[in-house]
Each structure stands twice: as C-alpha cells, then as structure tokens.
C-alpha cells in the first residue's frame, strides 16, 4: 500500500522504538508468561476456497456491516457494506488515510503506551484495519463486525474515532484455518471524548496453528463509557493487552474476559487500567477455564493517580482447572495514590464443584453432561450481557464443544 510521508515517519519512529526496546522481554514483569517472539512465528497462507468457507461460517447475519480482512488486507469482495449515513464513516483504515486524513493523523497511535513493544511493532507494520468515525450525538444504526481471516502474518489496526455523545458498537471475530500456522496482531484503539460510548467485543476462535496478539487501547474523557469483552478460544499462543485510561471525571470502563484453553495452548491477559481523573468507575471480571496441559495467565494492574479521588474500581479473576496438568497464574494488582477510593480485587482458582457434579448425576445427568452444565454455569455471567443472536450462540457452542 502507498504511505504518505507523515505515515512513513510514524512507521520509522515506531521501528526505532522496537529497535530500542527489542523484542526480547525476558525477565520483564509485563512478559512473565509469554514472549513477543512467541507471537511472531513462521506462517502459511490460505487459498481462496478456504477463505470463502471461513467468511461464510463466521459472518454475523445480524451485523449492520461486515468488513473482512484476509491476512491483514481489506477484502471488499468478501465484505458486506452499506452507504454511510450522514455523520458516520465506516471504511478500511487504508482508505481513511485519503478520505479522513486529519482524523487518522490526529488519533492513530495517539494512546499507545511507549513501553509495549508489540504496540510499537504494530504501529510500524500495520497494513490495514477498520476505521470508524461517528459525529457528535450520533449512533451507529447497528453493530459492525470486523472479521479477520488469519493468513500468513497480519498486522491490523482498528481506529475508532467517536465525537462527543456519539455511540458505536463493534464486534471483532478472529479466525484461523484448520491447518497451518498463522499469526495475527490486532490493535484496536479508541478515542472516546465526553459522553461517548463504545461497546466492543473481541472473539478469538483459533485452531491449533493460530498465534494471536490483541490489544485494546483507549482513553476516556468525562462521562465516556467503554465496554470491552474478550472471548478467547484456541491458538498455540494468545495474548491480550488492555491499556485503558480514565482521563475525565465520571468515566466508566468495563473489561470482561472469558478464556478457554486446552491441549498445550497458552493464553495470557495483561491489563493496565489507569484512573487518572476523579469520580470514575471501572469493573473488571476475567474468567478462565484451563483443560489438558494448557496454561491460562492473568496479570492486571489498576493504577489510581493522586488526583483520582472517589474512584470505584473492582477487579476479579476467577479460574477453573479442568485437569490436573493444566495451570493458571493470576496476578491482580492495585497501585493507589489517592486516599478516598473504593477499590477491590480478588482472585480464585479451583476445580469444578464435586458436590454439584454429584448432585446433577443424581438427577440423571451423565458425568459429561453435568460437567458441561457446570462449565456453562461458570461462563454464564459473561454471556448473559450479550444480545441474543449468532454471536452468543457461537460462543455458547465453543464452550460446550470439547
């Protein structure tokens, strides 16, 4: 793709950052359980037939628009788009460089943390992504789906630019082919000014050869609201970073995550949530189900700045080990500098409740179906807020299937 001069500058700046920090993060406390290099494997590409099959299988019929990216490149042929209503723009980021240059210059990479090498690498290498812009007080008529078909190595950057009191809702679906190795790096960044609201869902539905790095980067102004929900299934290595800053009074952020690992899969979630302004609220709930010899990791830090009085922050991490060989690491952390705050965090890891299993069997359920019911019960509160429809059904199916 063509890159204007300013963009080339940004790419080379990012490349310098990567060169400076390097990708060997051994011993760095943000990278205790995965290394950036694990997320950069040698990859294989897909043929057209398999792409078409994956698109058909994973497009959501109830989405307002579906934008498909294959191997990091926008695929118009596979997408389902409509003409934008006045005040709303939904297009690929490569198009937005020409059509919404000022917005892209102003906001692309603006909130990236400097100490996150894979964010920098993404800023250097991104090839495409979705661009969403909603004018003040407007709302998208429905949710948009970003469907990424993993092929080779892909670098996506999604940029959501909302104006004051605007509302948007988006679903990302990331899938990989049944065979072969792919890597996908997706950064979704959002500009959320006063009173705006973004609802964001990321579903990772990878097969064995998937390597996925995902990040959500957002800065919230006064009374802005972010809800981001992660559902992560499959892949050799899966890592998700959340960099969220509550930067204006009375902003609210909800971060939910549900992870299921099996085989020798490894999933890693890392959260940096900063309360930089008073009277904000944040709510984090992350759950993992680890089966076989897999590993599910969680590191979450809530920072409360000195001025962020009357902060209310809750963080909870709950995990279930489904086999004796599975493992879980959980590191919830609070760093509080303000003195008038309500913050709580907790972490619990256990096994499926034997008493409950036994009870269900006494009512005629097989061991297998009792297990599935308890797994669904554990995950239930993460699914409940989702609207009924194809997405919820597919997540439900991913939970039930073994």
């Amino acid at each position, binding site marked *: 793709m063509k890159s204007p001069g300013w963009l080339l500058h940004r790419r080379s700046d990012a490349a310098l950052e990567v060169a400076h920090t390097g990708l060997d993060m051994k011993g760095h406390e943000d990278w205790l359980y995965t290394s950036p290099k694990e997320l950069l494997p040698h990859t294989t590409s897909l043929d057209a037939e398999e792409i078409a099959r994956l698109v058909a299988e994973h497009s959501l019929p109830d989405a307002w628009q579906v934008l498909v990216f294959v191997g990091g490149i926008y695929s118009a042929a596979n997408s389902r788009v409509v003409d934008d209503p006045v005040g709303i723009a939904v297009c690929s980021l490569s198009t937005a460089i020409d059509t919404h240059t000022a917005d892209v210059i102003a906001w692309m990479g603006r909130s990236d943390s400097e100490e996150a090498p894979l964010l920098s690498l993404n800023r250097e290498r991104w090839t495409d992504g979705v661009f969403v812009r909603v004018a003040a007080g407007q709302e998208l008529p429905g949710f948009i789906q970003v469907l990424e078909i993993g092929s080779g190595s892909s670098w996506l950057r999604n940029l959501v630019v909302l104006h004051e009191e605007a509302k948007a809702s988006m679903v990302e679906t990331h899938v990989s082919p049944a065979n072969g190795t792919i890597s996908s790096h997706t950064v979704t960044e959002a500009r959320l000014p006063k009173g705006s609201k973004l609802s964001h869902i990321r579903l990772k539905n990878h097969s064995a050869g998937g390597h996925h790095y995902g990040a959500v980067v957002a800065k919230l102004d006064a009374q802005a609201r972010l809800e981001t929900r992660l559902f992560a299934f499959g892949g050799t290595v899966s890592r998700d970073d959340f960099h969220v800053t509550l930067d204006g009074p009375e902003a609210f952020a909800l971060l939910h995550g549900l992870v299921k690992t099996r085989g020798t899969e490894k999933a890693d979630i890392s959260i940096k949530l900063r309360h930089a302004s008073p009277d904000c609220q944040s709510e984090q709930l992350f759950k993992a189900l680890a089966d076989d010899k897999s590993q599910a990791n969680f590191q979450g830090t809530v920072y409360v700045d000195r001025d962020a009085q009357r902060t209310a922050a809750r963080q909870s991490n709950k995990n279930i080990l489904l086999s004796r060989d599975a493992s879980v690491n959980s590191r919830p952390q609070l760093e509080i500098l303000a003195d008038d705050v309500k913050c709580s965090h907790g972490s619990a890891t256990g096994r499926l409740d034997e*008493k*409950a299993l036994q009870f*269900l069997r*006494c009512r*005629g359920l097989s061991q297998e179906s009792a297990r599935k019911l308890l797994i669904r019960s554990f995950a*239930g*509160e993460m699914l409940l807020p989702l609207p009924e429809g194809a997405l919820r059904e597919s997540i439900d199916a991913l939970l039930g299937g073994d």
Partner: protein
Amino acid sequence: MSGDILLEIKGLRATAGKTEIIKGLDLVVRRGETHAIMGPNGAGKSTLSQVIAGHPGYTITEGEILLNGKNMLEMEPEIRSREGVFVAFQYPVEIPGLANNYFLRTALNEHRKYKGLPELDGGAFLKLVKEKMKLVHMDPALISRSLNDGFSGGQKKRNEVLQMLLLEPEFALLDETDSGLDIDALRDCAEGVNTLRSPERGFVVVTHYQRLLDYIQPDFVHVLYKGRIIHSGGKELALELEEKGYEWLTAGVQ
C-alpha cells in the same frame, strides 16, 4: 394391598473412611407402600440416603440393594436416577449461574431419552413445570433464577419436591425434607409427595419428627439405631416415639 417388591436392602454394611456406619440393614419396600425411618442423631439415616443416591464417599462392604430385582449398587448415580430412584436431599446444593429451568429441562430430557421418549421443547416444558410448581406453591419467578442460589430453606425444599414431581420416580427417598421448614412449606412439600403416591410407587420418608407424618401418612415406621433397624411398627409407632423418645428401644442395643 401391597404390590411387588420395589426396593430391597439385604444385610447392608457401609463405611465412610474407616468408620462403619450402616451395620447390617434390612428393608423391603413394596409398590404402593410408604415407610418412615426415624431415629436419633448419628443413627445412619443420612448415610442410608447417600448410599441409595450413589454418593462416592461411602464404601459398601457387605450386602446388597435390589431395585426391581436388579443390583442397584452396580449402577452409576445417573442410571439409578433414570431407572426411577429419586433422593430428595437434606441440604440441596446451590449452583450459581445454572438457570433452574435449564437444569430441570436437561434432567427431564435425559430421563425421557433413556425411556425412548422424545425430548420436550422449551414451550412444552414450561407449561409442564408451571403446572407442577402450582402443586407446591412455588413462586414462578424462581424458575429463571440460578439453581437454589439465594433460595430460602422452604424454597430449596419445594424445589427438590418439584424435581421429584417432574421426574416421577418409582422409588423416592426424602431425607429430612421437613428440617428447617415452616408449617406452610412443610404442608406444600407433603402435598407434593402425596400427589405422587400411587399403587405403582414406593416411598421412604426419613425424619426426626412425627409432624411430617401427619401429612404423609406412612404404612410402616422403622427405628434406625447404630446402623440397623431395631424396631418396626405401624404409623402409631411414630406417635409413641414422639411421646416416649427412643430410649425405651435403644437401651441395651449394642
């Protein structure tokens, strides 16, 4: 008046860890009969219930339990249930996140599949469950709540009886269903049980108190003590026990 033998316990001995709790218990329940088992604390009443349900925490060292002549001890708990055994538990488990109606429908459909009947769809199930809930005066809102999660004692026990009404067992054992119940809940639960009583079914009611037996009138009353049945009689025995306690029977029993 009594029918064929439904459940037969012969010379049963059961241990929890190294402690023997059931020490040679015999009991025959015929179709159409209701038996009450009473006895002081620690007699083995709850262990008997758990053994019949198939709890893995107990080891059977001797004896057998036959259900319609088949060796029930060889059956997994879910097979016992599908074969028509129901145990209403003294302490029903709470399962947060599991919707009561989803659980009930899954259980009922597992039973129907086992019997070669078609599964009930959501609508047909809802109609059936609402009908049964009325019988035990259960708040319809509880159907969409998490299973027993935050239910009162009375609501939990009504929910146990509701499960029994849906699964329509041939043999049911109620383990201290009356414990912790106010008089309304007690009556509702008892009425639920009474609607199921028929010449085809058999019941065992395990209880501390005569009170429940005013509502569920037994044909036989047994006294369980130190893991054995030491005395049996008709329903008048329950009144006698209420009046005199157990000591006149337990004195001298080794």
